[in-house]
């Protein structure tokens, strides 16, 4: 199990790892397990401003399509290009190779982020 002490979580099952003004965003292991085989991701272009709590994209599995919500505000600096051809990385390594966005100017977190223990409690793990 990955060390998630540096990760924060949204109640809508995204994670964020903030390092100074930079942040990396993805979805949780619980979320990928619920979705099953991830088929397609709709992610914003580099330069897009995302806002904490607002929709930034969508994820589709065979079972369902779900919206993705930004854990923190910021500017999209990088999008994980590997997911275009290999969206299944979200299933196999949700906290590592399955990352979705890297943000610059990471700021406001909307105030409802959970730590590892809080999120584990939320999903009953």
């Amino acid at each position: 199990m990955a060390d998630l002490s540096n990760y924060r979580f949204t109640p809508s099952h995204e994670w964020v790892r903030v390092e100074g003004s930079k942040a990396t965003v993805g979805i949780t292991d619980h979320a990928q397990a619920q979705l099953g085989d991830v088929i397609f991701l709709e992610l914003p272009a580099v330069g897009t401003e995302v806002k904490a709590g607002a929709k930034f994209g969508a994820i589709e599995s065979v079972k369902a399509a779900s919206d993705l919500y930004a854990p923190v505000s910021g500017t999209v600096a990088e999008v994980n290009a590997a997911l275009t051809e290999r969206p299944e990385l979200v299933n196999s390594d949700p906290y590592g190779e399955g990352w979705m966005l890297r943000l610059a100017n990471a700021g406001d977190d909307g105030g409802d982020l959970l730590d590892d223990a809080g999120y584990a409690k939320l999903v009953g793990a």
Partner: protein
Amino acid sequence: MVEFGGFDMPLQYSTIREEHIAVRTRCGLFDLSHMGEVRFGGDRAFDVVQRLVTNDVARLEVGGALYAVMCNDAGGIVDDVVVYREADGYMVVINAACRPKDIAWMGDHSRECAFEDIGDQVALLAVQGPRAVGLVSSLAAADVAELRPFHSMDTQVAGVQATVSRTGYTGEDGFELYVDSVGAPGLWDKLLDAGAAEGLIPCGLGARDTLRLEAGLRLYGQDMDENTDPYSCALGWTVKLQKGEFIGSAALAGLDSKHPPRRFVGIELQGRAIARHGQQVLAAGEPAGEVTSGTYSFTLDHSIATASLDGEVPPDAELAVDIRGTVAAATVVPLPFYRRPKGA
């Protein structure tokens, strides 16, 4: 687990992709005990069943089976079914979600013969895939490999009495095994044990749906309902008007089978976004119909769907699907999307 027709059903045992690929390349085991079964018996059983379904039951010999739809008086589809001719009557397999209404409908129209809902006594296991015939043959007392498609026989499989039918809902070769529900868990375990060496894995409702859609097979409640006539969902081949009067025949005779009110088509989408049931189909930018079923095809590696188009939409119209606000270009392709290799 999901609730389906009153049964708790696994959507997946491992992953939908893994189970799907197992059935296309090796074999998979399905528990389909949620499916309903009814039995018609007595001297008038033939007349009753022949009146209930669109296809011609007269051409069935004992052990033979056929696919049909059951219509209401207006020609709308009440359910899609498989009819088996038995030595002393007929067994009809119905959809779990339709069971209460089918029992009421068939009960109302079978006063002249014995009619019984045997769904609770009968369990159904399916073994599907290129290695399915070899596997079941190795466990069966009789030579089930000799069965032709849509034929069945009674024999023992791994010591369990079963009606073995060369049918399925995956596009692969294989068998469906109708057994007494008491013996089903034991047979399930024996099949998994014996099949392990052949790569057999248990498969859930998720893979069942992706497999049937690749094979161009309809799902009742999604691709058709009581407001759909058989021609409008490309099931005109199950309608045999020449067999004589049956429920819905007058209404169906009044339709133009070549130009029905709706046109059912297969479409391929560019990209990986999945078109889903109910999403709007556009022709030259204008509303033209809706998606009935859609998925990502693990065999073809792109998104596929079936759609019900207004009958007026020209065959060569440029189509697109509105997938949650994003318009994805779509191309009409012949059904099925996937056909198993010859000789496999």
